[in-house]
C-alpha cells in the first residue's frame, strides 16, 4: 500500500485530478458559439488534453520508479507555510510591520534561533527597517497597521 500511496504518487495524482477537473469544467462553461479557432475554449482544451495525457504518463512513471521520498520536516514546513499564507492574507489588514514581525519571529524560533538579540534584530528590526525604508525613504507606502498607523 505504501508503494502506491506516497508523496510522489500523491502529487502526480493531484495533477491528474486537477487537469481532468479543469477539462470537465471547460465543457460546462457557456460562451458565444463562434466555433473553431474563434472559440475561447479552443486553445485551453488543447493544453488541458496534453496536461491530462502527461499527468497520466507521469503517474505511471512514478508508480514504476519506486524512488524513496526525500526527507521532510513536516511540522516545521507546515507551520512556516501556514505562516507565509497568513502573512499574505493578513498583511493588507494588519499592516506590513506587524505581520512581518510575527512571521519573522515565528520562523526564526522554529528554525532554532534562541538568541534574543538575533530574534529582535532580524525578527523585529528587519521588518521595521523595511517599513521605514519603503514608506518613508522611497515613498512607496506599504499597508499600515490599524494599531501602529505610523508604520
Amino acid at each position, binding site marked *: 500500500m505504501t508503494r502506491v500511496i506516497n*508523496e510522489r504518487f500523491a*502529487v502526480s495524482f493531484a*495533477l491528474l485530478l486537477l487537469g481532468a477537473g479543469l477539462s470537465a*469544467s471547460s465543457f460546462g*462553461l457557456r*460562451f*458565444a458559439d*463562434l466555433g*473553431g*479557432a*474563434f472559440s*475561447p*475554449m*479552443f*486553445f*485551453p482544451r488543447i*493544453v*488541458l488534453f*496534453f*496536461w491530462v495525457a*502527461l*499527468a497520466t*504518463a*507521469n503517474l505511471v*512513471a*512514478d508508480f514504476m520508479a519506486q524512488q524513496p521520498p*526525500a*526527507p*521532510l*520536516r513536516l511540522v*516545521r*514546513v507546515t507551520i*512556516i*507555510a501556514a505562516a*507565509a*499564507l497568513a*502573512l*499574505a*492574507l493578513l*498583511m*493588507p489588514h494588519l499592516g*506590513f510591520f506587524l505581520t*512581518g514581525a510575527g*512571521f*519573522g519571529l515565528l*520562523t*526564526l524560533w522554529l*528554525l532554532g*534561533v534562541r538568541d534574543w538579540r*538575533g530574534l529582535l534584530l*532580524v*525578527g523585529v528590526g*528587519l*521588518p521595521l527597517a*523595511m517599513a521605514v525604508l*519603503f514608506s518613508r525613504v522611497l*515613498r*512607496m507606502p*506599504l*499597508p499600515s497597521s490599524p494599531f501602529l498607523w505610523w508604520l
Partner: protein
Amino acid sequence: MLELLPQALGLILTAQGVAALVLGTMLGIVLGALPGIGSTVAVAMILPFTLTMAQAPAILLLLAVYAGSVYGGSISAILINTPGTPQSAATCLDGYPMALRGEAGQALGWATVASVIGGLTSAVLLLLAAPQLAAFALNFGPIETFALILLGLTCIVSVSEGSLLKGLMAGAVGIFLSTVGGDPITGEARFTFGQHQLIAGFDLLAVVIGVFALSEVLLRVAAPQDGAARLVAFNGVVLPRLAAWRGRVGVLVKSVLIGNGIGVLPGTGAATAAFIAYAEAQRSSPRRADFGKGEPDGLIASESANNAVTGGALVPTLALGIPGDAVTAVMLATLTLHGVTPGIRLMTENPVLIAAIFTGFFVINILLLPLGMLVARAAAPILRVREAFMLVAIVLLCVIGVYFVRGNPFDLLVMAVAGLIGFALRRQGYPMAPLVIGMVLGGTLEISLRQGLIITNGDFAAFFVQRPIAAGLVMAAVAMLCLPLWRAWRAGRSKAARI
C-alpha cells in the same frame, strides 16, 4: 548603433544610472554569493527598488544584479565549497581545493578575470546578434511566431534539468495558467470561477516569486543544511600575472565560445554551459591530470562559460521576447513593468534605450573587475550569516515585491499558493523554468495559433506546407523533443554493452 551612443550615454550617465550600475553590480555579487538565493531570486528581490526609478536606470539595475549574481556565486563556491548559484557548481571542483591549499585569493583572481572576459564577450555577442535576429524576425507572421515559440518551449523542456515528462508537464501547467482570464480575441472570461480578480489573469511575478523564491525557502526549511559553513583563510583577490596565462588562453577561448553558444539557446542556462566547458577543458587541457585538485584551468572554464551565458541569454529575450532561462523570464516580466515590451519591434521602437542597455551591459562587465575584488573581501564574512536570517529576509522582500507590482492583495495570495505548489512540485523533481516560460509565452502561442488557423481557414497542415520557415522551426522542435529520448537510448545501449 554607434550613432546612438551619445544619447545612450545620456541615459546612463545620470546619478541614478551610475548608482544603478555600481550598486546593482555590488548587490548582485553579494546576493549571488549567498547560498540559496541565486540569480532568479536576486532579480526578483531587487524588483521593488526599481519601481520608483526611471526606465533606463531600472533596467540597468536589473542587468547589473543579474550579471553580478552570476559572478558572486563563485565567491561562496571557492570559500565555503557551496555554490551561491547553480551556475557556480563547477567552480567548486577546483576553486575549493585551491582555497584549501591557501590560495583562495588566487582562485578568486582567476574566477574574476575569467568572469569579466566571459561577460564582455557575451556583451559583444548581444550587440551583434540581437539586432540581426530581430531584423530577421520582422518577416515573421503568426504562423512563424507559433512555430518559433513551439521551438523555444521544446528547447526549454528538453534541456532543462529532470525528466522530459516532468518538464513537459510543468510547461503545460504554465501555458494553462496563461489562459486564465480574458480571452485575447473575444474578451470572454475563462477559468475565473466567479473570482473577478482573475479576469486580468494571474500576475506573472507573483507566480514566479512564489515558485522560485518562496518554494526555495520551504525546501530549505524541509531539508536544512548542516550547520555553518567553514570559511577558509582569505585576504583579498589576487589577480593572476600575465605570464600565468601562458598555455591557458585556449581553454579560455573555447569556454567563452561554449558559453556564448549555449546562452543563445533557450532553456540551457549557465549551469549547463559551465559543466560542458569544464568537461571540454578537462578533456583537452595539457594539465588535465590536475583537474579536481585545484587546477586554474577548471576555474577559467566554468567561470568564463557561466558569465558568457548572460549576454547570450539576453539575445532571444530582447530580440524575440523568448526568455533564455528562468532569470531572463523574470527580467522579461520586469521589463514589461517598466514599459518595455521585449520582442521583434523592441529594436525599432526603442533604439536609444536598447543602445543604453547594450552599453550598460558592457560597463557592468567591466565593473565586475574592480567591484568583484572589492566586494569579494567584504562579502566573505557575510557567508557566515545564519540561514534562518536570510530566509526571513527573502520572504519579506518577496512579499514587498509582489505587493508593489499591482498593489493588489490578491497577488499576495497567488504568491503564497504558488509557493506551496512550487514546493510540492520541486520536491518531486518538476523543473520550474518550463512552468514560468510556458506562462510567459502561452499568450503569444495561443494568439499566433488562432490567428494562423483563421488565416489558413482552419487548415493546420497549411502551416507547414506553405510556410518553409515555420516547417523548419517545427522540425527543429520535433528534433529537440527527440533529443532526450535518443540520449536515453544511447545511454541504455552503452550500459548494456558494459554489462
